[in-house]
């Protein structure tokens, strides 16, 4: 049984202009101990999806579908029970460590309050555990750190604290929403290694969200690509990166300059921009920007098609698979 099974998840956010279809019919599953990477451009709905899974959507939003975790649908769970799941079974690491720690509360409280609630342990026990956790995530001088306020820590240290908080109650699933975007490359590197290490050593399932394809590439087992609220492609990380089938994934990979890019040579472009999330195009949402689009792309639109042992794609005109990647393309 997978750790997490998301079926037909829709998360809409009400705005003055209408409902933003931030996540629109997304399904995937996540095995135990597996790391899933979610990539996509800014505004493609990654964060909203993470929040929808948690049940932490903002005011005035609606959510439908199923998020089955350990056999229970989180979306229909009463609030009190949900609070029992949060932190204890599913934990989350947010994008900006500077903003996801409360600036006016000492690290110690932020680190121990969850433990005291979920594990029912005393303050001193929680403190002991906190020291251990900080040491585990590589924070030097944990005693001192507990007394600090978040602003007294460096960015990398803050993110480590955030991770320690997430790990405090030994959750089964860790959702990391752009955990390194705010950090320097060298520190980002440390954090990514740390997350991967923890996921491996503790057997925790993990969802790693990033807009940076490279961040996800080497550190996840499977990768999902989102575009405008929809899942474009999902599959084993290696397959998605080496043999992207969705035209969007393909274009995305081409547009990012790599460290060994030939200088002064133009980059490949994706023309146009993300569709209006309130009234996105019907059918394939990438169609207006896609060179290969045909009328079939909008009506009836693509369906999710399996293109490999663990590789699904929602594209009417997938890129031809490189010879070695295998997998049949069933075009409708």
């Amino acid at each position, binding site marked *: 049984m997978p750790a997490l099974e998301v079926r037909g998840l829709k998360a809409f956010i009400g705005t003055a202009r209408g409902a933003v279809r931030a996540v629109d019919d997304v399904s995937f599953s996540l095995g135990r101990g597996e790391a899933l990477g979610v990539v996509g451009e800014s505004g493609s709905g990654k964060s909203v999806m993470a*929040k929808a899974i948690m049940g932490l959507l903002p005011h005035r939003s609606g959510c439908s579908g199923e998020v089955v975790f350990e056999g229970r649908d989180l979306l229909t769970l009463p609030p009190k029970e949900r609070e029992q799941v949060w*932190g204890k079974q599913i934990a*989350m690491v*947010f994008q900006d460590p500077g*903003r*996801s720690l*409360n600036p*006016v*509360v000492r690290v110690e409280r932020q680190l121990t*309050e969850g433990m005291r609630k979920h594990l029912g342990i005393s303050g001193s026990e929680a403190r002991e555990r906190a020291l251990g956790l900080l040491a585990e995530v590589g924070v030097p001088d944990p005693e001192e750190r507990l007394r600090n306020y978040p602003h007294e820590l460096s960015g990398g240290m803050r993110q480590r604290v955030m991770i320690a908080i997430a790990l405090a109650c030994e959750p089964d699933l860790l959702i990391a929403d752009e955990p390194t975007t705010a950090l320097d490359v060298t520190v980002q590197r440390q954090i990514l290694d740390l997350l991967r290490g923890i996921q491996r050593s503790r057997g925790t399932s993990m969802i790693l969200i990033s807009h940076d394809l490279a961040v996800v590439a080497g550190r996840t087992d499977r990768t999902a690509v989102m575009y405008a609220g929809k899942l474009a492609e999902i599959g084993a990380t290696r397959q998605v990166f080496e043999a992207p089938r969705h035209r969007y994934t393909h274009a995305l990979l081409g547009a990012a300059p790599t460290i060994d890019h030939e200088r002064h040579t133009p980059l490949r472009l994706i023309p146009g921009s993300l569709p209006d999330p309130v009234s996105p195009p019907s059918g394939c949402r990438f169609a207006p920007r896609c060179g290969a689009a045909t009328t079939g792309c909008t009506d009836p639109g693509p369906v999710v098609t399996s293109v490999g042992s663990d590789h699904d794609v929602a594209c009417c005109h997938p890129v031809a698979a490189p010879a070695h990647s295998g997998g049949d393309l069933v075009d409708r």
Partner: protein
Amino acid sequence: MVLSIARRVGRSAVVVLLVTMAAVGLLSLAPGSAAAVILGENATPDAVAALNASLGLDLPVWQQYLTWLGNAVTGDLGTSPITNEPVVDALLARLPVTVELAVLALLISIVVSVILALISATWQDTVVDRAITAFSSVLLSVPAFIAGPLLVYFLALQLGWFPVSGWARIGTDGLEANLASAIMPAVAISLIEIAAFHRILRSDLISTLREDFVGAARAKGMSRFYVMFRHVLRPSSFSLITLVGINLGRLIGGTVVVETLFSLPGLGQLVVSSITSRDVISVQGIVVFIAVVYVVLNMLVDLSYNWLDPRVRKAAV
């Protein structure tokens, strides 16, 4: 650090100086004089002039001011020519009333507005929130001079819960009587404050609620109320504290409407009687006093930022 404190104190001194100069300047333009007030309807111009001279009120305004200032810096605020009471004594006698009133009013408004704001922010944009917001609009348009009579009519005359007027002192009449005499005036003052505080706190709470750390705390499984109290309230209270500081300063000199209404022996009444009897000496004393209180309170507010926000604390070191 020492330097910055010295600078602040220096600035504050200049502020107080400006305030007293303005007060003297203004009152010197007002018709009538203390001597005329003392001598009354049968006064002859000669008698008025003679009394003015003996009170030192015939000197040029700036000279009077300098003399006053010279005494004031040594702590001698002079003696009122009207009541023959030393100004310092008069101030000290009125202070407890006004301070109690202002503090009580602010306490009531803070407690009520914080509760209302927490409810509003938690159930943002719902019927509850809208109802509370409308209610605060009602409060905003109920000035103390109308809230007072309403309270008296219902709570004192109809229900007989509180005395209609007058001040009971803790020392002689006991705490209960004291609170009973202070509660209606304090409530009358607090209504508008409740509205203002609610307004400002609600919007700060709502913007804090959008912060990532709130989501992060919820994601730890902490309950809604725990998060509201422990994580949201404090970082949202800066504007509130500033406002409380300013308003406390203003209330110290400005509870006159309810003091008059409820005949409470506070600073406000002293202000009115001093001004209407052209008692420049007393007015000066009160002005200095209120300005100093205001300035000190504002410094305290700044200090409280340190307590509220450790980031400021570090920066100040």
